């Protein structure tokens, strides 16, 4: 039920009702000792109120009833005014562009495109009706290295979509080029062709010498055109290193005892000789030649030194030094590690044959191979 509710004094209510019903309809009239409550149509409320006032009838309360009543209760005037004002502001804002978006530029900076827009008097909060997208499109297309541009207004955003020119290396690089071949064993994880014919795909296991990119492209007529092969290929490369450690090692050490003999030569002819008897059981020999004078008379001194040595047999405790050996083996494997490589996994295995331990260290690298 919808309408307007009156609560009036019950005094002389019959007289009031009789006057009101001559022109207007009344619903749900109820009466108690003090009050009379009745409802009327919204359109009649003002006239009924006038009649009541004319009769000096006391009105206790008057309110909307039904849907209007709820609307009146839910929305205060402030909220309704706020919504109304928002609608107006929103309506006004739809007439302007509030944002400029540039997409599709990779080499060109957004700033360069914005400069062109500014030169053409395009800025935020410019009225939409003053923007001619076709003219703007033509002007943006005139920027160097832009092959195509589209300008659209979507909502309040001016979207500039540009396509940059592709560098036509095919024309420049026509000639005989070598294919790109793999210099690693591994598995392809990413393959992005720039130019040429890609011969591998992601997941392929490649060996050293496998062709990755052929130096040609095939046109629509099926003709092969020679181009410089270019691609970004990343693969998982397995690099292994091994280190052998013998359990018993024979080491030779110098004892510190030494004997020196020397000879003097002039014009490469021996002029003096000092010989020594080498009594050492085992020794190491070192020879050294020094020119004493080389101006008028070239005199050369040839010195031979004998160092006494002893041979010892050392037992290596592998388990104690295991980590050191593994680290040593890893460092050997890392010799193949380049600056931009990423270590994806590393593992090692140890096995023993006779008295020799062998450490096998494997590094899995994510390597950009071309």
């Amino acid at each position, binding site marked *: 039920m919808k309408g307007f509710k009156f609560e009036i004094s019950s005094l002389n*209510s*019959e007289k009031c009702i*009789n006057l009101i019903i*001559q022109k207007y*309809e*009344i*619903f*749900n*009239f*109820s009466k108690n000792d003090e009050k009379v409550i009745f409802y009327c149509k919204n359109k009649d409320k003002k006239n009924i109120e006038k009649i009541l006032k004319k009769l000096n009838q006391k009105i206790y309360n008057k309110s909307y009833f039904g849907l209007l009543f709820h609307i009146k209760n839910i929305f205060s005037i402030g909220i309704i005014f706020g919504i109304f004002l928002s609608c107006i502001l929103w309506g006004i804002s739809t007439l302007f562009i509030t944002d400029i978006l540039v997409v599709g530029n990779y080499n060109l900076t957004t700033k360069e495109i914005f400069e062109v827009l500014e030169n053409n008097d395009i800025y935020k909060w410019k009225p939409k009706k003053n923007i001619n997208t076709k003219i703007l499109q033509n002007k943006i297309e005139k920027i160097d290295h832009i092959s195509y541009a589209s300008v659209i207004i979507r909502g309040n955003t001016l979207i500039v979509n540009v396509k940059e020119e592709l560098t036509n290396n095919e024309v420049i690089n026509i000639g005989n080029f070598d294919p790109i071949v793999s210099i690693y064993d591994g598995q392809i994880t990413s393959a992005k062709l720039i130019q040429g014919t890609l011969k591998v795909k992601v997941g392929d296991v490649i060996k050293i010498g496998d062709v990755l990119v052929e130096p040609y492209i095939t046109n629509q007529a099926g003709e092969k055109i020679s181009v410089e092969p270019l691609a970004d290929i990343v693969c998982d490369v397995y690099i292994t290193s091994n280190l052998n450690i013998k359990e018993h090692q024979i080491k030779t050490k110098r004892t510190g005892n030494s004997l020196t003999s020397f000879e003097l030569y002039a014009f490469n002819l021996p002029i003096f000789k000092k010989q020594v008897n080498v009594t050492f059981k085992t020794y190491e020999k070192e020879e050294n030649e020094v020119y004493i004078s080389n101006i008028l008379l070239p005199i050369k001194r040839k010195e031979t030194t004998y160092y006494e040595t002893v041979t010892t047999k050392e037992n290596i405790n592998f388990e104690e030094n295991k980590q050191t050996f593994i680290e040593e083996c890893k460092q050997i494997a890392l010799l193949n590690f380049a600056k931009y490589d990423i270590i994806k996994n590393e593992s090692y295995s140890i096995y023993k044959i006779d008295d020799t331990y062998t450490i096998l260290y494997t590094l899995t690298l994510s390597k950009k191979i071309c």
Partner: protein
Amino acid sequence: MFNFFNELALDYNLNIGEYNQFNLVNLSNRLVYIEGQKGIIKIATDCITFRVKKGVISVFGQNLTIKRITDTTLVISGEIKQIESGV
């Protein structure tokens, strides 16, 4: 336009002018519909009295309310016990 009371008068060969002072329908002692009311005399929860042409009608009962009232029609609801008509 179809009028129930006119049709009834026609069916029984009654003079419409003569029998058109007021019409009253009582629906199961719960609702009373009156055509031809000429003004409210008294409104209370146990009695509603109103004028008709050449007379007065009183509806007695409990929790009586006027559901709808215009210049000629009146709908009374409640527990209707008695309807009296007088000059």
